[in-house]
């Protein structure tokens, strides 16, 4: 269990491990004092980007490659100060402008409870599938592939996958999935993915930010440069939030020679640790 907490930077002694896991991408930023305004300006700049992505053989923007964030969204989506093993970080909530998740009052209470019990209550602590969008900003890389009919996402963390059909087929109706049901389409330079059928057992981050089974996501993936992919998500859940809200962050391309996904079989390490304790 200790190693797992290290992973999420829960123990002060684990900083080195966290950096190691970030595979050299861990340019750990301590921007706690930056105003939220900075995030908004950055987002505005990205959305006005005129960068034209390279094309796939069928003429679509090419998003393929191994991507990873450099932020601390896995710890908390909102701006947060440093704590034991957790670097302070600029929030990724860009709407509403205050950078705060618009919880309903009773949901805010639940979030507080989650935060207090996060070391045992976080589903990721049990090595469960991370859900969407959390999978995209864990401190592990993921790889995007494209064919004319599909966009694929393969995640190093717990070998999660997403298969995103582009053929306009409808969502499956009322089936719960850990990773949801994704359907994609192209809007100019942007891949837009609708995600529904997510159940209520995943969290957004290790600070206890949560949702219900009425969660609906609209993800937007836009290349903003040769080595950056802007990832924006509109999050809607009338059971938990007073209004839709939005996160946005850049993903960075792994450019190391022969970069590839390895494996992180989370639950095996958990089981090994449990056996040692016996």
């Amino acid at each position, binding site marked *: 269990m200790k190693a797992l907490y290290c992973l999420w930077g829960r123990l002060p002694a684990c900083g080195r491990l966290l950096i190691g896991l970030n595979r050299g991408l861990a340019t750990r930023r301590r921007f706690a004092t930056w105003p939220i305004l900075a995030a908004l300006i950055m987002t505005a700049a990205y959305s006005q980007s005129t960068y034209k992505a390279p094309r*796939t*053989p069928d003429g679509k923007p090419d998003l*393929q490659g191994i991507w990873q964030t450099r932020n601390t969204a896995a710890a908390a989506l909102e701006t947060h100060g440093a704590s034991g093993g957790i670097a302070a970080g600029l929030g990724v909530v860009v709407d509403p402008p205050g950078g705060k998740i618009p919880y309903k009052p009773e949901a805010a209470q639940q979030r507080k409870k989650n935060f207090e019990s996060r070391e045992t209550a976080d589903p990721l602590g*049990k*090595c*469960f*599938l991370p859900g969407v969008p959390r999978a995209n900003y864990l401190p592990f890389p993921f*790889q995007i*592939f*494209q*064919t004319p009919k*599909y966009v*694929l996402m*393969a995640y190093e963390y*717990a*070998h*999660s*996958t997403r*298969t995103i*059909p582009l053929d306009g*087929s409808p969502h499956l109706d009322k*089936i719960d*999935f*850990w*990773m949801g049901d994704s359907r994609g389409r192209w809007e100019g330079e942007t891949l837009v993915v609708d995600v529904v059928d997510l159940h209520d*057992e995943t969290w957004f981050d290790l600070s206890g930010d949560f949702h219900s089974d009425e969660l609906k996501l609209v993800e937007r993936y836009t290349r903003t440069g040769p080595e950056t992919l802007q990832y924006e998500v509109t999050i809607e859940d009338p059971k938990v939030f007073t209004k839709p809200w939005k996160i946005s962050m850049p993903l960075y391309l792994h450019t190391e020679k*022969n970069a*590839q*996904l*390895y*494996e992180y*079989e989370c*639950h*095996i390490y958990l*089981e090994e640790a449990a056996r040692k304790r016996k």
Partner: protein
Amino acid sequence: MRSLVCVAILLLVGLGAKAQGGRGRGQAGPPPGPVLRLPDGKPDIQGIWDSKTFAPAYDIEDHPEQFGIPGGKGVIIDPTDGKIPYQPWADKRRKELLEHHMFEDPEAHCTLAGVPRQMYAPFGFQIFQPPGYIVIFFEAFHAFRIIPMDGRPHAPEQVKMFSGDSRGHWEGDTLVVDVTNQNDKTWFDMAGNFHSDEIHVIERLTPLNSNTIRYEATIEDPKVYTRPWKIQFEFGKNTQPGYQLMEFACVEGERDLQHYVESEGGPKK
């Protein structure tokens, strides 16, 4: 044995459900046509496929029926006796695993099955051919295999993985995949057949027509076997319109390990 039977029954129920769902395994839909081609002339093997035999999921060698486990034909074509050419110590260990350590079956612990076991697991898999890669997503254990086709070297030797490290190339119409870097934690089946971390697998996937792929794998492991050996069977394409792979959660709902008895290495009651 009880839990082996449990797992076997689960497998049977799963397979039965799939069969009732009209799972084609290549038999439904239009008759097969010639091998499909991509614009670059390479075979187009994209689609959802199933092994045509699940017997090796129970035991890769020929095996008689037992309670909960249908008798089945193994898939070993070399040596011709259909048996894994174990070194004497390894043959002993395999028997020991089968009789007393079914708790250790990696699949019971929701691990990735490794290669080749993943290829004859039930529930199907989907092959994609994005530029520069063959990508396979499996329903079982939401496993995936990423097979670079650009001739890059294997991952460094010290990186061991459940699914290993795959590199592919075409030899005519045959996709040849070289698999190294596997750890020693996976088995071949539910019958204790095993390998070490020196296992080296060379797979050959040859499309025979639009709906059939012949799968062949040569398995080498100088620590465990006296010589390389070979398995062969076929994949059938799932031609059911609109069929898609679903999500397979294992760790998330695991309740079975507690049922293993002590004599199989299970938890003390």
